[in-house]
């Protein structure tokens, strides 16, 4: 183990330079976030991920944000285990009827001020599953959404761009 650790101390990091925040996301967010929240939270945001019906493709890419290439934590973002510790809910999937209440309760358990980011084409409007008897639709049908990051699934870079936009305004 020591050898492995040492090798990595000397090797140059894999981490990519930070992308610019997504212009589209900035425009969507611009009006929604106030200065007060920024002062209170600084540049550290706790994220609670909620799968409200996804096919698990989005989860795979959200996971990738934590790998050495994207290293989300360098921006002050970190994933937390409880909505009570969270500032941001990162919600995926078409919201299914069976998950609707769980999502509502997760939202209610998240302290203010809070932001909701709907991830993926399904989170926007139900995606390929839109119109099913078992799906409510996009995340915004159930809880207020501040930012959409489309894609099927969005790549880690697209997720990063969206979240950085959130950080700029938050």
């Amino acid at each position, binding site marked *: 183990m020591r050898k492995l650790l040492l090798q990595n101390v000397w090797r140059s990091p894999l981490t990519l330079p930070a992308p610019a925040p997504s212009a589209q996301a900035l425009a969507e967010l611009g009006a929604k976030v106030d200065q007060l929240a920024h002062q209170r939270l600084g540049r550290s945001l706790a994220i609670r991920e909620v799968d409200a019906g996804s096919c698990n493709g989005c989860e795979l890419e959200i996971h990738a944000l934590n790998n050495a290439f994207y290293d989300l934590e360098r921006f002050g973002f970190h994933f937390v285990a409880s909505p009570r510790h969270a500032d941001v809910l990162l919600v995926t999937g078409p919201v299914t009827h069976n998950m609707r209440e769980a999502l509502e309760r997760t939202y209610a358990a998240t302290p203010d001020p809070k932001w909701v980011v709907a991830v993926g084409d399904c989170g926007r409007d139900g995606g390929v*599953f839109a119109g099913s008897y078992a799906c409510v639709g996009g995340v915004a049908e159930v809880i207020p959404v501040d930012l959409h990051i489309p894609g099927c699934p969005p790549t880690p870079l697209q997720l990063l761009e969206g979240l950085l936009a959130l950080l700029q305004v938050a």
Partner: protein
Amino acid sequence: MKASNPNPALSAVLRAGQPVTGHRPWPRFVVNVEIWNTLLAGLAKGRWNLLGLWAEPSMIHLAVHQVESETLSVASLPCPTGTFPSVGRWHPPAQRLERTITDLVGLLPDASPDLRPWLDHGRWPHRYPLGSSIAPTEAMPPYPFLPVEGESLHQIPVGPVHAGIIEPGHFRFTANGEAVVRLEERLGYVHKGIERLLNGAPLERVARLVGRVSGDSTVSYAWAFARAVEAATATEIPARAAWLRALMAELERLANHCGDIGAICNDAAFALMLAHCAVLREQVLRASATCFGHRLLMDCVIPGGVAVDLSADGVSLLRALIVEMRRAFPPLIKLYDHTPSLQDRTANTGTLNPMLAHQFGCGGVIGRAAGRAFDARRQPGYPPYDQLEFTVPTRRESDVNARVWVRIREVEQSLALIEQILERLPSGPLCEALNRPEQVVEGMALIEGFRGDILLWLRLAADGTVACCHPRDPSWFQWPLLEAVIEGNIVADFPLCNKSFNCSYSGHDL
């Protein structure tokens, strides 16, 4: 229940039924109750495996596989009265499938030991969405969990929203101090109603939907669908397409296994393995994106062939990936093997009784770590794997450690497979136009995803649209075993057991 012959061959039992024309590549028979009961008796005695159980409003289908005689068949029992003799009564692996059939179609299993709803949580606008589709008349009562009695027991409800970045499901633990006495799963939270979306849809839409039944297995699902369509329409695909599918499927296996090995170690708080395995996984996904245009390879496999060719620099890029993986992976295996604190958590944890693995026909890493060597790439097998050399690694200990080792060995096998494919990739067209059958035809396929064998059955209407389609995830026969392996383990070892299984919620809930 009585069987005239004490040890009948599956084909002999089914031959008494009425063969259905236009069902390929394996036969389907319409059977009577007597044959049905003989099939159930054979399942209960372990003479053949349950591959799938699904229904239409007036008929129930049972897919069975006798591995020794290489017989794979579907038996269909008409249900004019809306009931059928329960399979789960004799063969427990069928119980959740039966509960699902009742929830979705409305057919009732006669004398079933468990009539509780499964996917229907009482929240859909109508009941029996694949059957009569009626508005619910009354609210569904709270879900009755199985009773657990005894002194000093306490319950820990977990989910549906979990602590990690994972899919939703509910786990009800009953513990005596630290030790788990019973785990009961409650799934269905991500039920998206996919089957009804598939019914009547054109092939292109169905391909997209089936590729999103479980995002981590998108290539395998798309391949299963494509192969079932090609079987139904008797379409031969170009050799290059089959080889490219295998290339994508092995990249998918590689990425998922790398991720899982790291994640299992991380659940024992050994984050170093996760950090390194996640880098390997990312490198595979990046190579996939450069070669085929999508990190998870979604929508790359289509009926008739593949949608994208390997990019010009693809071969050299993948060769470099193999070199890099063969450099970076062995030190990680050594790290895993030589860290006693990690071994202490994984060895002898979550041991699965091999009898259960066989009874449930449990596929994938879980089955192979319990000595069940089944791999759909071998049996029934499909091209191009018949022309490729690979072994199917197995272990006997069936604990978390064994499941890690099977994954490690499968990573090595996948690398060797990719190497062979790059070496011998045939040239030629990517896609073949599908034959138009001009009548109703049916097809099925069994494809080995990284998680196990995916079954897909479908019927095509005369106009070429999909009349109905049923994908069955390997997780159906794995989730129930997770309940069994956690028994007697401490609560803190549940994440390890769960991650070493890595069942799909979305694939199961459909």
